[in-house]
């Protein structure tokens, strides 16, 4: 396995650009925003980092996964259950095994438990998924999401059913969120530049040719699935400890669609694209959400428009896919541009 120094340099440059973005968002949060606004901003950073985690699998393999929201849910519940103190847990989730219930886990322990839980789940599901035909994977992962969602909804002795977990201790501050973002971004870029990432991208471009060159297709897909799952677990567990309360409805279609649309709009094949898409969709939804409740401008009243955000996002996705099937950035990273390239070749696509 040879690491390409050109790919590593590009990843490093991209990391620098994205790190500047994340660090400046974090500084703005700390310096300028009040408590409630800062929670919206940290939530944005964590959602962006989960979109990056999804990009690791979807972007490199070209297979669509709806199952990553299931990883998110498992991570959030595992971290929440580990962090909740036993007396609070006893009233909402009496069937939690004693070793987990009595644990008032610190941040690293809670995140660790979430990651282990997701690794077990992802390893179990990843084996059949890696062997499936590409066209089947999207359907199978959708079934996986439904399975996990219905179990969480029904197993109320552990999960508190549709009401979800509440009063999860707030173990996270802006710097922890920033650190999570940076770790996930670095890992995603490193994987993309790695020999395993390259092999998975080769499978994405042409499965038959890649297999003919001796690339073990199923094993590379499984590796991408696992890396992506671990990053998703990291982002999801920190998200849970930042959100402090969550319910099963948050881990279903609305959120799946929101995260996947960020990925599609920004550009599937690139980590920069995931971040760009997250920014575009977040800004768009915040603007449109104000319309959703109805508005009155002078005597002209705009009626209530339930679901206008979803409608607009759906239209945007269709238009962008028709215009650029790979999303806005396609496979291009911020770090693909360098002054060396500028001088010799001009701006490369």
């Amino acid at each position, binding site marked *: 396995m040879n690491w390409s120094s050109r790919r590593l340099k590009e990843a490093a440059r991209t990391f620098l650009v994205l790190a500047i973005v994340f660090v400046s968002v974090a500084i703005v949060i700390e310096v300028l925003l009040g408590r409630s606004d800062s929670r919206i901003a940290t939530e944005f950073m964590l959602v962006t980092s989960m979109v990056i985690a999804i990009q690791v699998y979807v972007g490199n393999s070209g297979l669509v996964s709806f199952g990553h929201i299931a990883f998110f849910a498992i991570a959030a519940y595992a971290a929440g259950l580990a962090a909740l103190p036993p007396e609070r847990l006893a009233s909402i989730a009496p069937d939690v095994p004693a070793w987990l219930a009595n644990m008032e886990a610190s941040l690293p322990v809670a995140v660790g438990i979430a990651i282990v839980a997701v690794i077990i789940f992802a390893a179990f599901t990843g084996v059949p998924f890696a062997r499936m035909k590409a066209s089947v994977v999207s359907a*199978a992962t959708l079934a996986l999401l439904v399975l996990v969602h219905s179990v969480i909804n029904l197993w109320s002795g552990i999960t508190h059913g549709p009401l979800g977990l509440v009063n999860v201790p707030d173990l996270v501050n802006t710097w922890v969120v920033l650190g999570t973002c940076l770790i996930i971004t670095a890992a995603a870029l490193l994987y993309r530049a790695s020999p395993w990432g390259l092999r998975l991208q080769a499978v994405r471009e042409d499965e038959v040719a890649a297999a003919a060159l001796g690339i073990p297709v199923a094993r590379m897909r499984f590796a991408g699935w696992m890396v992506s799952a671990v990053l998703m677990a990291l982002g999801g567990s920190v998200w849970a400890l930042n959100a402090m309360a969550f319910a099963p409805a948050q881990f279903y279609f609305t959120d799946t669609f929101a995260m996947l649309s960020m990925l599609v709009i920004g550009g599937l094949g690139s980590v920069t694209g995931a971040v760009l898409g997250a920014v575009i969709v977040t800004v768009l939804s915040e603007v449109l959400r104000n319309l959703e409740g109805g508005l009155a401008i002078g005597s002209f009243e705009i009626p209530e428009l339930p679901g206008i955000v979803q409608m607009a996002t759906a239209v945007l996705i269709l238009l962008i896919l028709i215009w650029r099937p790979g999303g806005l950035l396609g496979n291009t990273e911020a770090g693909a541009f360098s002054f060396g390239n500028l001088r010799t070749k001009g701006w490369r696509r």
Partner: protein
Amino acid sequence: MTAQLLIQQLFNALSIGSIYALLALGLAVVFSVLGLLNFAYGEIITATAYTMVLLVSLGVPLLAAAPVGVIAGILMSVFTEFVAFRPLRKAPAYAVVFSSFAVSLLVQSFIRNVVSPRPQGLVVPAWLDQVITVGGVRFPALSIVTIVIAVLSMLALTALLQKSRHGLAMRAAAEDFETTRLMGAKAGRLILLAFAVSGTLAGIAGVLWIAKIGSATPDMGFNPLLIAFVAVVLGGMGSLRGAVLGGFALAFVEVGLQVFLPRDFVPYVQAISLFVVIIVLYVRPQGFARRVEERVA
């Protein structure tokens, strides 16, 4: 377990299975030609259901509303082809997954905004609610109608595929699309036909579905979509015979679980049957179909 109960449950599974098989067939028809899954497939059922609810509420008899509902289903299927599939013919497969998913959400939020987010009830005539009891086994009229219509639809599809020129072209396209084009079949028209056939099958399934559940909601298309996906995956992608087999297999697993599981676990039937499917795929990643390139019908 008595013989009566066994016959009763077998009959139930057969009736549910025939809806599932129709749903799976409609999805598989497009997949066999294009090699792509239509994520807006559930919206065909939604279109059929809302059309029927509207017509019946205006006083149109159910038997007259049903064919119009099927036509609405066909139109929805063709709409999906024009919006989500045709503009992305050259794009990679994942782009089409997203575009058809976007159409699905577009239709759902359209219904929420223009019609209502709340369930819309369908009044079913009394003769459909009748139950015929033979030797202690209950045969609801709707279930009998369901089985008869499903069997007739499958026979009609087989006839179309085996006897007509267009059917021949579709079967050929399922084997090798490019070669079929070289033989003079018009690609655009062939794909449009596949979507129309898919819409017809899903529309018929939609009529039976709405008659069974009795009310229409904006996201009602999701369960039929999931059923069709699972059945098609189980049956081996693109094989029409496999899709029918997958539909019945899923129904028998579901009914079986409902009968044999302890009472506490009955709410988990959907989760457990999806789990069973994952186990099956663990052993046979390509589903039931023995060969990947299976002949159509």
